[in-house]
C-alpha cells in the first residue's frame, strides 16, 4: 500500500537566505547576487498579543540578473529570509 504520504506543509514558507546590507540596513546583495534596485519596502507587525509575535521588514528587490525577489529581515532574530509573496 502506498498509504504513507507527506504531512501538509505551508506554501510560500520563508527560506533562509544570505543577504548583504548597506550601512542603512538595505539589501545590496541577495543570495550572492547584487541588487540593482529596491522597489519598495514595508513593515509587518503581527500577533503582538501572542507568545510568538512577528516583526518583519520586507524588501522587494530586483537583482542585476533581472530577478524579482522578496526578502525580509526577522527583527526579533535578526535573520534574513526569502519568501514568495
Amino acid at each position, binding site marked *: 500500500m502506498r498509504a504513507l*504520504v507527506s504531512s501538509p506543509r505551508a*506554501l510560500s514558507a520563508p527560506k533562509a537566505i544570505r543577504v548583504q546590507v548597506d550601512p542603512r540596513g538595505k539589501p545590496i546583495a541577495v543570495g550572492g547576487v547584487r541588487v540593482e534596485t529596491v522597489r519598495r519596502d514595508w513593515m*509587518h507587525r*503581527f500577533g503582538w498579543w501572542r507568545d510568538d509575535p512577528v516583526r518583519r521588514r520586507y524588501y522587494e528587490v530586483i537583482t542585476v540578473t533581472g530577478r524579482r525577489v522578496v526578502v525580509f529581515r526577522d527583527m526579533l532574530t535578526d535573520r534574513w529570509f526569502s519568501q514568495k509573496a
Partner: protein
Amino acid sequence: MRRRAENRGPLIVCVHIPRFQLRVATGGSQDLLGRALAIAPTGGGAMSVGEVTASAQAQGVRAGMALGEALGHCRNLELIPGDPIRVARAWDQAARALEGIGAQLELARPGVAYFDAEGLEGVHGGRDGVIAAAGNALGSRPRIGAGPTRFCALAAALQARSRRARVIDERHARRFLGGQPVGTLRYRPETEQLVVPLVRFGVETLGALVKLGAAAVADRFGEPGSLARRLALGQDTPLQTRRLEDRLEESMDLGEANSGQLLERTLGVLVDRLLARPERRGRTIRVLVLSARLVERGTWCEEVVLREAICDAKRILLALTAPLGLLPAPAVALGLAVVEFGPSTGDQTCLLDGERRAREERRRKAVEQVQALGGTNAILRVLSLEAESPLPEHRHLLTPWIG
C-alpha cells in the same frame, strides 16, 4: 531492562545486494572476479555505463559514467549487455522472499530495499531476530544496515560486511552520518547529481556538508541541496511501501515474426491471453510491462501506464503499439506482464449530467495516472486557510491529494 531502553525509537532496515544487476547479467559467475566489467549502455538511453565490478572501479570507472570517459580510465574494460527482464524477475523474487518474513518493502532500486522493523520484532524475537530473518530470506549474502531513517540505514548497509549487519542507534545517527562520504547521496535519485560538484568543492563528508549551513547550501544547490543536508542531519521522509499484488505474465517466441505487423499480431495474442487468464478475476488493467529478448544478447523492457484502467483488448493494444517502436534491436521473444490492476467494475457512465461528471472523472483519472507514475506525493492539493493573512505562509497549505 537496559536492552529495552536501547531498543526504543524507529528502526528502518536496509537490505543491500551490491552489484545486483551485474550479478544477474553475468549469471553470478565466479570467474568474473578480478575482471574489469561494466554493463553496456542501453540502445535508446544515454551512452553511460551501468554497474561496474570492483576491478573496474579501482581503475576509476563508476556507474553512470559516459562510455568514452569509462574507456579512457580503463582500456581493458569489458562491456556486457544488461538484462533488465532477468534483473526485474530476480529482484521481484528477492522482494517476495523478504515479504515472506512479514516485511512491508520499499523497493528503491534493484539491490536496495527498505522496511520498518516495527511490528516484526515480536514475530522474530527482537531487532536482531528481524535482521537475521532478513539475511536468511536472501541466499545471496546481502549487506544489512539499520538506523532511525532510511538514509541512515542505507549508509550503515554500505558500511556493513556480508556476514555482520551494522545497526546505528538513534542517538549516534547524526555523528555516524557526519563521517560518511558524500558519495552516499548517489543512492538517492534526488541528490545523486550533487555528488560531483560537492567533491569538486572539496566537500568530502556529509558532516562537512552540514557545516556549510542551511542558507548557503540552499542558495548554491537549491532543493536537492537542502534535502541532502536534511538527510545528513538524520531526517528523512516516510517509507513508501509497495502494494502486494499478483503479477500476470505471458510471453511468446517470435521465430521469423520480426517485422512490424507480425510483432503487433503477436502482441495482440499476448493481450488476449492475459485478458483470458482466470487469475485476473475480472479486474481492469492499469500498468503493464512490455519486454523483449533481443537477437543480440540482452533484453529490453518498457513500463506502460494506461490513461485509465481498462480491459478492452483493442485499446490496450493501441497503447502498447507506440512503445513497441522503441525496440532497440530485432527481438526473438516478446513478453507482456500486468504489474498493477484497476477496479473490476470499470467505468459506469451516466446518461444525464454528463459533462460535469465527465470532467470530474477525467480529473480523477489524471490524478490516478500521475500517482501511479510518481507515487502518492506526486500530486498535491492547495488548501486555502487564511487567504487574508498578512503572513504569506499562513495563507495556503500544500496537502496530499487523497481520493
